[in-house]
């Protein structure tokens, strides 16, 4: 359903990512890891249509991605919630942009918030919520429009370890309900193993894929405690370290 063909992007004449190609099938998940600042976020921006590639192209269901669209949702670093809008308005924003009536979009946003465990906080503002709660709202906002594809940019990086683990499970649960494919960018190898069916390791700048690992244990909430997880983590660490 998602195809990246030789994607490349430069800023001020400096190549940030180069020759990135991969495919993502219906219901699949992909985690992208690599050295800090290698261009992982740029890749997501190209896939979301927020930024246009200088080389290559990205296709969703065979159609080139030429700009942001309702069927691709992105969870930005630091959540991207609008501080001047209430929780419910933040979640319903995508539906509002699509032209859905107020009553219907509020009902849907409320149901989506309940799905991520946020109930009775409609009138609160993002600043009223903890980091973990804000991230849940961001997940609800990404899923409420029923996108064909979700992109996640370091979604849990600013959370404490316990909250991060809880939200990883929440994301996994949400994925298991609708099997919406996602591409997750993270600097945490453990998170990549927890949330990626396949894990793509990128090189340092300009970022290009250097290896793709299959993750047979994906979907198991207790994957962290398995021997297979440790083995995969070891392999990933070696591959990533070789890129520094």
């Amino acid at each position, binding site marked *: 359903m998602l195809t990246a063909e030789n994607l490349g992007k430069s800023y001020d004449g400096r190549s940030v990512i180069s020759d990135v190609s991969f495919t993502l099938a219906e219901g699949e998940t992909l985690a992208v890891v690599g050295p800090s600042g290698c261009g992982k976020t740029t890749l997501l921006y190209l896939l979301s249509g927020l930024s246009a590639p200088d080389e290559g192209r990205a296709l969703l269901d065979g159609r080139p991605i030429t700009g942001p669209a309702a069927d691709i949702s992105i969870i930005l670093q630091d959540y991207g919630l*609008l501080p001047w809008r209430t929780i419910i308005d933040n979640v319903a924003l*995508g539906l509002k942009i699509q032209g859905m009536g107020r009553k219907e979009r509020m009902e849907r946003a409320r149901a989506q918030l309940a799905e991520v465990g946020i109930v009775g906080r409609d009138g609160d503002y993002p600043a009223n919520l903890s980091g973990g709660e804000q991230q849940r709202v961001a997940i609800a906002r990404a899923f409420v429009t029923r996108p064909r594809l979700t992109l996640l940019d370091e979604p849990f990086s600013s959370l404490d370890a316990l909250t991060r683990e809880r939200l990883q499970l929440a994301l996994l649960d949400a994925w298991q309900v609708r099997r919406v494919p996602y591409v997750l960018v993270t600097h945490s190898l453990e998170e990549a193993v927890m949330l990626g069916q396949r894990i793509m390791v990128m090189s340092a700048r300009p970022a290009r894929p250097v290896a793709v690992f299959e993750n047979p244990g994906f979907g198991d909430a207790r994957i962290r405690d398995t021997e297979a997880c440790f083995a995969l983590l070891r392999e990933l660490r070696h591959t990533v370290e070789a890129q520094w």
Partner: protein
Amino acid sequence: MVKLFAAMLRYGLVILVLGILWKLTALSLGGVVLPHPEDALAALAEAMTTRIFWEHFGVSLYRSVTAMALAWVTAFPLGLVMGSVRRVDKIMAPFVFLTYPVPKIVLLPIFLLLLGLGDTSKIAMIALILGYQILVTTRDGVRSIHPKYFDSVRSLGGSNMDVLREVLLPAALPHGFTALRLGTGVSVAVLFFVESFATTRGLGYMIMDAWGAMDYLTMFSGILGMSIMGAALYEVANVLERKVCRWMFLRAKD
């Protein structure tokens, strides 16, 4: 209700401290040039029972509120456009920043010549001075909006109109309101100055007229009246800001 009571208590304390300082200064000066506060307050209370005081007060209030509204409706949208449309900013910014340091108050004679001796010239003068503050603050505020908010709306398929409604406008409002709130002091100061010339109405005229006649108690009634008006305008702007930009006054949870 508790907040209102706390605000009134704060004001009360400040008035008490200022009153004590005033009383001590009046005692040290012998109470001739500077009347005792209780005499000035008694004079104000008496003035407030007269029609002429409220006429002056009403005229001054009308001039400053109209000027503030005029400054807001012209400068805020312009600041919004300058902050968000680079091409407009490139053309407008040199005009704004070259003329910003010029003391606009020196243009008063020209305003009086062009717009006449009535309210229009006075309102235009105050609006011009206040407008610059609102324009510059709003424009800089819009330019400081984090790009992630634009991405946030655009990633949902938002159009330019959605970005304006969901990001630019709500993010710019606090800057515009802060400028308006801080500008109330400036607008009352300018009001006093413009009412010192070519008019027979307004608190500024009342103060200057009483000063010329060495009627210091009436002069202080005017000064207190203008202070009350300035404080009231500041509080109205403050309440408006808190109502419209509620999110600005929240405390983060963690």
